[in-house]
């Protein structure tokens, strides 16, 4: 079933798009990630122009993360105060990221920077997750006593001024590192066309010391608003959001996410994390190879004249 996308100006198979959304939704349901890092490269692969893939990907992230936030609000696992502060940083970061993106695309190096960002971040996160989950699996197998982890470690980030009380997280910390984390995720999100959950979650746990139970909900809360803002910016500044494409991806995505959540409940958490780590490392490896191996085609065409 071919369908013509009004903004992308290409005809693609609607079932392929729904399937693609479904696979990514399955991932997000299984692993609790937004899936932006998968959808954007996959859209490139089926021939959607990169600028449209990035902007429409952000629109799809709004749907999947909003669906997730609702579930977390019900379970009261969202730290709204933390979310708003993260979002304030995120909006600044996202605006700066879009400016940086435009500057890089004038220089013709945007593809390179995006690819390098993907390789570095996916590589780091994937390796960390793999190591951590292998250790957890090992520990579970030995079934020895689990060492209680000491929370409330007072690191250097806790000595900064502008302290705020985050009741849901049980934290009383400076708002500066929170704003910085939000801003960093905003910049990366705008450049890489992803929600940034896979960067935010570890940063919240390891840098801010937030309890794991509120991390996912709070990150989804911030991502919903941030990607809504990014979508709107892309729509207004470059007209690159294709709503037809977004609807097809969303239909597949929300269905996949529900199936993924069901499946996820049946599988073991450590095994799931190892699978996700391998997937992240796989995507990273593929992108790294593209950078280092001689491409088949050395020339590329971009629309418009850049002066």
């Amino acid at each position, binding site marked *: 079933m071919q369908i013509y996308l*009004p903004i992308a100006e290409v005809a693609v198979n609607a079932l392929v798009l729904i399937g693609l959304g479904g696979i990514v939704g399955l991932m997000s349901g299984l692993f609790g990630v937004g899936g932006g890092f998968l959808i954007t490269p996959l859209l490139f692969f089926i021939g959607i122009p990169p600028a449209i893939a990035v902007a429409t990907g952000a629109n799809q992230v709004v749907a999947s993360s*909003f669906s997730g936030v609702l579930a977390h609000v019900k379970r009261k696992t969202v730290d709204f105060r933390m979310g708003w502060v993260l979002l304030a940083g995120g909006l600044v970061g996202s605006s700066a990221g879009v400016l940086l993106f435009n500057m890089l695309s004038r220089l013709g190096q945007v593809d390179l920077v995006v690819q390098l960002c993907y390789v570095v971040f996916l590589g780091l996160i994937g390796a960390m997750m793999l190591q951590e989950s292998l250790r957890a699996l090992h520990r579970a197998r030995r079934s020895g006593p689990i060492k209680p982890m000491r929370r409330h470690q007072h690191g250097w980030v806790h000595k900064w001024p502008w302290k705020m009380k985050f009741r849901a997280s049980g934290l009383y910390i400076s708002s500066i590192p929170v704003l910085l984390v939000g801003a960093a995720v905003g910049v990366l999100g705008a450049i890489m066309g992803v929600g940034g959950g896979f960067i935010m979650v570890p940063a919240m746990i390891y840098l801010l010391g937030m309890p794991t139970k509120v991390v996912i909900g709070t990150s989804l809360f911030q991502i919903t608003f941030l990607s809504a803002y990014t979508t709107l910016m892309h729509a207004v500044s470059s007209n690159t959001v294709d709503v037809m494409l977004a609807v097809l991806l969303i239909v597949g995505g929300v269905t996949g996410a529900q199936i993924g959540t069901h499946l996820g409940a049946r599988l073991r958490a450590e095994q799931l994390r190892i699978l996700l780590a391998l997937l992240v490392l796989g995507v990273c490896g593929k992108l790294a190879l593209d950078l280092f191996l001689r491409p088949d085609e*050395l020339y590329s*065409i971009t629309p418009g*004249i850049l002066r």
Partner: protein
Amino acid sequence: MIRHALFAVLAPVLLALPANAQPAIPEQPPEQIVAGLSRDDVDITTSFDGSEIIIYGAIKRETRIPAGEPLDVIVTLEGPAQALTVRHKERRLGIWVNTGRVSIGSAPSFYVVATTRPLHLILPAAEDQRHRISIPLAMRAFAGPMEVEDAVPYTEALIRLRRAADVYRQDDGAVRLAEETLFRADVRLPANLVEGVYSTRIFLLRQGRIIDTFRAPIEVRKVGLERWLYRLALEQPFIYGIMSLAIAVAAGWGASAAFRLVKRP
């Protein structure tokens, strides 16, 4: 009476015509194109999956078919022009990076040349230059300062990439000509069409000379939902953006509500 008077006035003019007309009025070619298109507009609907246009016609002539070199027909179909930039990658510090670039002010988004016989056999370079028929000549101006010494590899790459994407085509022998009188070319339009006015040209050639040309426009436009969304995105981008977000939020909420319903029993 009146008729007689009229004749008296016109007679010298009419009689003088065959002798005088030749240099005065541009010479009527001995063989002329009478052509038609199977359609003069293409509507892009939601289910648009490419289209086919039949460009057909006949050769009108007062005399008998001249002997000697056979007649040839070239048909071109050209999409709206676009400005674009071609980039080249080189290895720097172990990774592949864009280095050089060439800006092209105007290149057709779609271009097909269909002929009766191989193009290089029937079309001399001078006529090609004049009418810009072959694919390399269909690209017009270079724009902006040249940053590279040699732009040729860039334009060659552009043609190679566009040919690979099937938007530039040279179909030698795709025009069927019967009895040196009736011709027909079937041009396939791809699914990734750009909106705008496409132009069809037909050239009639004999002995390496273009003896007649014919032009007709084809309008390609989005209709219905496609058109509405496209216009909204361009003219009211803020409202369009809000609409896209509303759809996303509604879908997200709908999914979680549906999930709750399924889970409850």
